[in-house]
């Protein structure tokens, strides 16, 4: 299945890129598994926010084909 990933703000700077397109075997994966995949096995840093298809979720959320996953630091708008 295919997952698109977006990184924002300081997290994008740390990743060195704004997005990833991932092709995974099988038909489900958790957010944590995808993060480990794109960071060579690291765990998600504290205070990182996660969204799937533009709704907040957590690291245990299960992804499906075509999902847009995003990682970003605490928001500072307003």
């Amino acid at each position, binding site marked *: 299945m295919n997952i698109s990933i*977006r990184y*924002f*703000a*300081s997290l994008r*700077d740390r990743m060195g890129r704004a997005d990833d397109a991932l092709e995974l075997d099988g038909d489900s994966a958790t957010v944590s598994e995808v993060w480990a995949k794109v960071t060579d096995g690291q765990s998600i840093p504290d205070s990182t*926010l996660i*969204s799937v298809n*533009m709704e*907040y979720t957590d690291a245990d959320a299960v992804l499906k084909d075509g999902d847009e996953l*995003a990682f*970003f*630091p*605490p*928001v*500072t*708008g*307003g």
Partner: protein
Amino acid sequence: MKVIVQQESFSPGQVIQEFQDALPRGKHGGVVSFVGTMRDFNDGEDVVSMTLEHYPGMTEKHIEQVCAEAAERWDIVDCLVVHRYGEMFPNDAIVLVAVWSAHRANAFDACRFIINYLKARAPFWKCETTTTGEKRWVEHNSKDPKAEVSDLEGVK
């Protein structure tokens, strides 16, 4: 209910007036608004400009959710949110939240709720450029996160 996320600068008073002129007449007795302005210093250093990054689509969606939640909790006539992204300069208006209602207590409560939850939920990130040319991400909106949280609880 109108949510605008735009790059262009705007004049809060003018935007409020134009929106109000299009409202059904006579239903509201007043408008409560909050305008957040860019400061020219932060953490003791002069800031010459600021760039606000956002997550197009998700940002609008979450501000709209917050407005819809406010409209469910309080009896309001209408609300308007304008939030900028991109580069801005000291004294620029960053965000406007305006709420019209028949009874002002509802407008105060709803306006406060919207700006508090917008700040907590809407995906925006501030990056400041200081006089030395250094660019730095703002890590938290407030120096006193506890104050923010208690303010959020206050309107629940």
